[in-house]
């Protein structure tokens, strides 16, 4: 059993939540799917690192360098533990977008090098006749790198469609076939809120010999995830959506796949030996961490992970599930409001998108902002998903552990007042 969250106590750990906006309005933050707020513990951890141990990691013969390296590698271990992974299988990236690009570039770099005689694992060599499979609900970060990979290699991009309720069309899963080299799928949609059956998709990818990749940006911050149970070869997510600092993301991979992958960014720290003509590369994860890394951010993210573990991921998931149910209920009760995404609170996360008949999302967001309610409006970097639902944009409410029903009530009141202002209610 998970314990109920003491939201009022949690909110005290987030200094920004007590500020006011727009002429003295209390801030109601419902945009955590874009980025989460940070507890004092995270800010303190970063500051403490800079005040006591700052140095370049993995080099230098002095005590500070040792301490910095220890802080960085301990952070990796803490984050690995959070998703039940091994430390050496976690790569630090700038953000999830970089993690997904790192994966996509393994294929394009592999393909390019193989043409000049380099020995490359054939899984990373693509050409005409090969296919790459994504879904119609991907964030642009998990779509455009694959479009680019196809443009560079002559492979073909295919996608699993989305039904009217915002679920993947299971009948499309068989487009993953023997021609498929990569399958990259979002775990939880940032726009629809749908939680996808990624295990089923990854199993199919494995069966067909394709490399399976999961974008877990919206799932890992909100639920307990045992990363190996997803059945993927690679999983990317970001730190800033899980109470961590900006500028840090994660890419997990199986030891086997990381070991076979050509590098993405090259330079210092990622090498084994260097000669004027050629070089050899360090084993993972260092092979994928060129240059001086984001140590303070790693330390901050480890503090975020400890904070989440102290609160309890199962409690957070239950709390957000309850809030999602409340949001769906309240929005469904509003005339002229249509939810874009699953209507039922089943296999569904806490990002809820909707359109208000007669009021453009940008105007809904503006009028909510005037009441201190911060939401996201637009296409949420998932433009093709908007097209699928014939809407130019949506308004999205998204929650986290520091929200409660009073935040949802404030948003609902704001939507009603926007309808009144635009004369549509």
């Amino acid at each position, binding site marked *: 059993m998970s314990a109920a969250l003491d939201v009022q106590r949690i909110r005290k750990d987030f200094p920004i939540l007590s500020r006011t906006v*727009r*002429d003295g309005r209390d801030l109601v933050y419902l945009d955590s799917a874009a980025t989460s707020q940070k507890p004092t513990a995270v800010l303190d951890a970063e500051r403490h690192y800079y005040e006591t141990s700052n140095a370049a990691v993995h080099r230098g013969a002095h005590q500070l360098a040792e301490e910095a390296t220890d802080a960085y590698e301990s952070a990796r271990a803490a984050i690995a533990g959070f998703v039940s992974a091994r430390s050496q299988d976690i790569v630090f990236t700038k953000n999830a977008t970089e993690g997904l690009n790192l994966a996509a570039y393994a294929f394009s770099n592999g393909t390019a090098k193989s043409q000049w005689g380099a020995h490359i694992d054939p899984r990373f060599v693509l050409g005409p006749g090969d296919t790459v499979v994504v879904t119609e609900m991907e964030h642009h970060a998990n779509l455009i790198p694959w479009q680019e990979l196809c443009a560079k290699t002559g492979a073909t991009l295919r996608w699993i469609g989305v039904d009217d309720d915002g679920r993947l069309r299971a009948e499309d899963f068989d487009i993953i076939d023997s021609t498929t080299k990569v399958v990259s799928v979002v775990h939880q949609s940032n726009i629809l809120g749908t939680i996808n059956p990624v295990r089923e998709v990854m199993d199919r990818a494995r069966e067909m010999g394709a490399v399976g990749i999961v974008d877990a940006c919206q799932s890992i911050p909100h639920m307990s995830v045992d990363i190996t149970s997803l059945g993927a070869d690679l999983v990317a997510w970001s730190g800033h959506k899980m109470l961590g600092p900006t500028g840090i993301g994660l890419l997990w991979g199986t030891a086997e796949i990381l070991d076979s992958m050509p590098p993405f960014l090259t330079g210092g720290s990622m090498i084994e030996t260097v000669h004027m003509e050629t070089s050899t590369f360090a084993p993972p994860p260092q092979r994928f961490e060129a240059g001086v890394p984001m140590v303070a951010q790693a330390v901050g993210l480890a503090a975020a992970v400890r904070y989440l573990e102290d609160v309890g991921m199962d409690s957070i998931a239950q709390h957000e599930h309850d809030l999602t149910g409340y949001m769906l209920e309240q929005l469904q009760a509003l005339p002229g409001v249509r939810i874009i995404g699953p209507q039922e609170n089943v296999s569904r996360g806490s990002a809820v998108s909707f359109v208000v008949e007669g009021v453009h*999302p*940008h*105007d809904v967001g*503006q*009028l909510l902002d*005037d009441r201190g309610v911060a939401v996201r409006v*637009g296409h949420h970097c998932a*433009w093709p998903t908007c097209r699928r639902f014939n809407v130019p944009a949506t308004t999205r409410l998204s929650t986290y552990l520091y929200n409660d029903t009073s935040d949802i009530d404030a948003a609902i009141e704001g939507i009603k007042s926007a309808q009144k202002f635009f004369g549509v209610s």
Partner: protein
Amino acid sequence: MSSNVESLYQEIILDHYKHPRGKGALEGAAGESYQVNPTCGDEVTVGVRVDDTGHVHVGYEGQGCSISQASASVMSELLDGASVSDMARAERAFVDLMHSKGSAEPDEEVLGDGVAFVGVAKYPARIKCALLPWMALQDARYKAGIEIDKSEG
């Protein structure tokens, strides 16, 4: 509702949004431009030509938020039938207004209902919405080869 947001959504703007003037593609446009605001998906297509008497004709189509669509309506009402030099003057005045941070006192002679957009300049995220049709006009005018004299206005 705050005074800032009231000045953003002035009656004139809401009226243009709900009752757009002159909406529709321009037949025989000499230049046309499709512009989109990639952060929110607002879209507008503006067509322009100059007739034998030196008058400008402007048409537009689009979809999006109240600010972008009202801006297109105001622009077409103001410029359809105007002289090239009036168009140039209005274009400059509107861009200046959007960069004024809300402190300008716009000239109704030059901008017509466009003066109502002064409050938009206080909201950085909405300036792009208001400018969208004007950017489309600029591009369409360029494609049509309509020269404007920089020294005028």
